[in-house]
């Protein structure tokens, strides 16, 4: 091996043992400095996820009960604002009626 040929092994060894680890660790550090979450964040997220799942299950149960009670209950919910207003006035009227009556609580 003479001349430029002697450079090839040096170059290859340099690339393999310096260039490649450099590249790998460059990306490892870059990847580590990215937005990671702490243990507390992780626990919080786990709890919220679990809570959402349980609430979802309960909601499905309640919807099934209501469905069994009245199959087309969704049509009755109608416009939420309107029905809420209607409902409120009714409740107000009822509360007036009950408050006018003499209290008969034990």
């Amino acid at each position, binding site marked *: 091996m003479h001349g430029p040929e002697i450079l090839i092994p040096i170059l290859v060894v340099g690339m393999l043992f310096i260039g*490649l680890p450099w590249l*790998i660790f460059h990306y490892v550090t870059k990847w580590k400095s990215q*937005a*990671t*979450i*702490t*243990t507390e*964040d*992780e*626990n919080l*997220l*786990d709890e*919220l*996820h679990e809570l*959402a*799942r349980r*609430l*979802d299950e309960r*909601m499905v149960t*309640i*919807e099934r009960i*209501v469905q069994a*009670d*009245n199959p087309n*209950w*969704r049509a*009755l*919910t*109608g416009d*939420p604002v309107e*029905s*809420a207003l*209607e*409902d409120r006035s*009714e409740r107000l009227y009822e509360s007036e009626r009950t408050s006018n009556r003499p209290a008969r609580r034990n």
Partner: protein
Amino acid sequence: MTGLRTKFYLDRQNKKWLGVCAGIADYTGVDVTVVRLGFVLGTVFGSGTMLLAYWIIAWLAPKKPSELYDTDPAQKKFWQSVRASPRRAGRDVRARFRDIDRRLADVETYVTSSNNRLAREIEQLR
């Protein structure tokens, strides 16, 4: 300091050799066969650099703790989405809470506005 479930681990239970490919698949949610194929092709065409990378990963990464193995598929998918983007996973959870809120509002509206059974029962109590 990252959390226990958002770390990269070697998956020793689904391993073929050292569990690196199975670990990557478990971490990202990519199919394990695709990851293995990528490593094999990388080794063939990259004249062994992928093999070196494989060894380095196997040497650096910790083994997966045994208590993290028994998570169900839905849980696994959720944590994969957290690893991909914690912010988006958080937004997803918020969206689910909003969905529950909306459905609960529907049921509430129905129960309070329909004066059938409830009203009858209130009448009976008087």
